[in-house]
Structure formats: C-alpha cells, structure tokens
C-alpha cells in the first residue's frame, strides 16, 4: 500500500456478462480520488459511468484490475462493511433508495445496520439532516417531499454513516432545475467541509466547480484534467455526445469573432468580469 488514495481505481475492467468477455461496460479505467477532492465524471448514456459508481464501494467487484478504498481491496469480502462506511453512493432515482416512510427513520437506516447505540444514531441523524438542510422535515412523510428534497434525504442517509467520500450517480437526472440546484449546492457545501465528492453526470454545468474532470466514453477514460483544460477541447466533448456549458460556448464564439478574451471563463460571473475588463480598456 504505497501512497494511500481515498479511492484508487487500477486498470479496472468490468463486464455484466461473464460469458462474453468482450462486452466490457468498463475498460481499463484508472483514476484516483484524494481526501477533500471534488471529482466529476462526465459521460453520456451508456458510457459506463454508472458502473463506476457501483465499483467504488464493493457493490460490484472488478472483473479484472483492482479498486482500493483507503488501501482496502474492494474484492475482499472482509472489507465490505468498512468500505461502505467510507464510501457512500447516492443513486439517480430518489424514490428507489428511500427505505422508510418517515424522513428521520430513513436517515437512521444506515447507522441502525451498523449496530450503533440508539443515542449515537439520534445525534448522527440530526447532524446529517442539518447538513442537508432537511432538519425541519425530519417527521415528514418521505413520499410527500419534492424530488430535490428526497434526494437530500438520501444524501443525509449517507452522511449519517460518516463517510469520507460520497459518490453521486447522476443525482440530478430526474429532478427539475430547482431540485438540481439544491442537490449540487448540497454536494458543494459538503465538499467545502472536507468531504470528497465524486459526481457522475452528463450535465456540463455541474462540472464547472470540480477539481478534476474525467471524461468517459464507451467504458474508457477519454480525458482527464481541470475543467478549463477539458472544456477547451470542445470538439472532443461533442464527438462523444457531450456539450460544453453555454458560457464556454459563448466565450469561444466571441474569441473567434476577435474579442480579446483571455483564458477560458467557465461561469457567468467569470465571463461577466472578463467582459467588463475588456470594456474598461
């Protein structure tokens, strides 16, 4: 165990069909996530990105290659519990990951499985609900919440296990813009408090705040880099069915037309600032 990454994929292959070894959903994927890092995995449908989520906490075990969580091999059944405590996964459909009918009882489900004493569970549940801003809803019925709220409850359910990393598998795909904002803001807030975040998505806008962006297509890693590096490769992104954020598109167009924009503004704020700078000249 050389340098311990929190999450370490080493030449991982995975196939859903053991008979047909050529049909790998994930092919030769290697990447690492360190403590406190915010990593975004971009890819469109069928790119193998959801498989990566399930490989990260020993739900799936690699067909070939290794996945290490904090130095523990996910293929080793002994580690299963410790790994799932360290790496939580939030899935796409909020309805299909809520177990109990009442918000606080659902959040308590994970800690209850760990056999923690009741008092500690209570504390953990309250803290987790406060962390996602759902404390006032603790006695509400889960099926009456909005999509974004349900997804935040699911996140709280993970936080209550005190993980070091949360993997989000397309958490916003089924939400309206408002719910999407709620979830992404929650993820960013958790990250600012030291939690590692892996966000798997096909929404470009959500990749802007990442420390590292990984682009996957056809089960392979196509590119890896900072958001600025990735978004400057517009053609590559479009070739694998992805798009660049509107702000990036706009600044590239302006550059093309001869507007002297320096660097590559990613957010609206950055673009506005850059534009004001140019106007002031």
């Amino acid at each position, binding site marked *: 165990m050389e340098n311990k990454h929190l999450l370490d994929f080493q030449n991982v292959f995975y196939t859903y069909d053991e008979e047909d070894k050529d049909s790998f959903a994930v092919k030769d994927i290697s990447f690492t996530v360190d403590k406190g890092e915010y990593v975004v995995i971009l890819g469109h449908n069928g790119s193998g990105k959801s498989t990566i989520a*399930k490989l990260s*906490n020993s*739900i799936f075990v690699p067909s070939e290659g290794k996945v290490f969580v904090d130095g523990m091999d996910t293929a080793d059944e002994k580690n299963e*519990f410790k790994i*799932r*405590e360290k790496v*939580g*996964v939030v*899935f796409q*459909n909020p*309805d*299909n*990951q*809520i*177990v*109990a*009918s*009442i918000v*606080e*009882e659902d959040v*308590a*489900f*994970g*800690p*209850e*499985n*760990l*056999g*923690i*004493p*009741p008092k500690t*569970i*209570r504390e953990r*549940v309250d803290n987790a609900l406060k962390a996602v801003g759902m404390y006032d809803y603790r*006695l*509400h*019925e*889960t*099926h009456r919440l909005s999509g974004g709220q349900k997804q935040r409850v*699911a996140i709280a*359910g*993970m936080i209550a*296990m005190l993980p070091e990393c949360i993997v989000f598998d397309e958490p916003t795909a089924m939400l309206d813009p408002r719910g999407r904002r709620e979830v992404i803001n929650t993820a960013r807030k958790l990250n600012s408090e030291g939690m590692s975040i892996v966000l798997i998505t096909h929404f470009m806008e959500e990749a802007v705040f990442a420390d590292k962006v990984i682009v996957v297509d056809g089960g392979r890693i196509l590119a890896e880099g900072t958001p600025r590096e990735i978004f400057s490769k517009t053609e590559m992104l479009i070739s694998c069915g992805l798009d660049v954020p509107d702000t990036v598109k706009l600044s590239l167009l302006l550059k093309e037309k001869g507007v002297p924009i320096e660097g590559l503004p990613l957010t609206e704020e950055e673009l506005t600032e850059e534009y004001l700078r140019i106007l002031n000249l």
Partner: protein
Amino acid sequence: MIKDITLGQFFPGSSFIHKLDPRAKIVITLCFIVALFLCKNFFSLGLLFVSALVAIALSKISFKVILKGLKMIVILVVFTGILQIVYNDEGTVLWKPFEQFGFQITTGGVFSAVFIIVRIIALILFSSLLTYTTSPTALADAIERLLSPLKIFKVNVNSLSMMMTIALRFIPTLIEEIDIIMSAQKARGADLETGTLTQRAKALVPVFIPLIVSSFRRAYELAFAMECRCYTGDNKRTRMKEMKLGIRDYIAFGVLLLLVAVVVYTSFFNTFSFFIFQQVI
C-alpha cells in the same frame, strides 16, 4: 382518486396516543377488538364506542380525517345492516311490507342491525387510530418484537418486519405510478372507464404489466441502495428509537383492563336488571 385513501396512513404528532409504546398500542388494539366481539349488550358496546371516541380525542387527529377513513366502509356497514334486518326474526314485528314473501322487520332485527353497525364503526375507528398514530417503521419494529418468540421456530422475524416496512413505504409510490401509467395509456387511446366489467378488467392489463415490470426495477435498485447502507439481512441491527414501556402504557393498559372487565361482567355474569338495555345476541 386512489390518492384519497387515508386508511393505513400515518399522521405524525406528539399526543398521549402517539407517545404510547407501539407494542402496547398493538396489544391494546387487539384486546379492544376482542372485547368488541365479546360484548353482548348495548351498555358495554356504548362504553367501548365512547372510549374509542375518547381515544380519538386524545390523539388530536382531526375528526375530518377520521370521517374520511369511515367513508370507505359505508357500503359494508349499510349492507350488513340490511342483512341483519332481513334475516333476524326475533322480537315483535314492526312492519310487514311484503307479507307474501314472509319478509318482516322486527325489533330484534333493528336492534341487531344497529348493534352490528356500531360495532363495525367502533372497530374501524379504533384500529385506524393505530395506524394514524404509529409510523409504519415503528409498527413493523413492534410486530418484530412481538413476534420475536417465533425465532425458536427459525422464523426470520427481522426480514419479515423489513418486508413490511418496505411494502408500506412503497404503497404511495406505486399508487402514484398507477396514476401515471393510467394517464399514459389513456393518452394512447386506452378506454379504462366504459364497457362491461370484463372489458374494463381486460383494459387494466396494460396498466398492471408496466407496473409489475417497474416494481421489479425498483426492487433491484432498492437492493443496491440498501446494500450501500450496509444492510445484509442478517446483521444485528440497533434502533434509533428504543421501545420502553412507560407510565403512559401502564395507564392505557389499566383503562383497557377495566373496560374488558366491565364488558365481560355485563355480557356473561350480569343477572341484575339495572342495565336496561336488552341483550341482543
């Protein structure tokens, strides 16, 4: 339409009834139902009915909700009442509308109809109070604890209660889904509301098949989500809310005991005539 079902719903609160131990509530409800079937005169039935009303008042659940729950059984109540009037020939004859058929309404019939109706209403009132004031998870946990002696016979009580929790949790989700599928099929020209009974039953097939398919998908995804939260099916789980019998529960048991004693005494041992209400059955 289907969304209006209030039976089996939970209304969070902090009343005396809400705070009772769920195990106590289940046992008390069962005893109350037994008492309802033991009682044989209007005095004790009235007593039980009034105590059901008092329990509802204590639970602070709005009377509107209770009435809504009762609406569902109107047909059952009316039907049973009519049957009693038709088939009971005891007592003096009040009215002979169709003498040639031997049909007559007697005092015995009217008494027993009223008796049965009050009995059914008291039954529904009291037992729906159980689900109105107890969260499904608490209910499942309580049943698990009450059934735990069955572990001697190798019955997996833990899984049973988990199944119950999940089933109750998914009822509203599936009802919502039925609504969506029905709308989708109607939009495609399906006729779900006219035709003979068999035609309408056949028209429901394209509603239930997608529902079943999607339930399996949900189950599959839920299983992943539960695994992510360290559920294995045989781990020793702890609970956030410990169940402890308190003074409240003993008071409730005391009141119940008193009621049962009165019911049994007046129904089986009463030789005094100061209970002016006549015995019915």
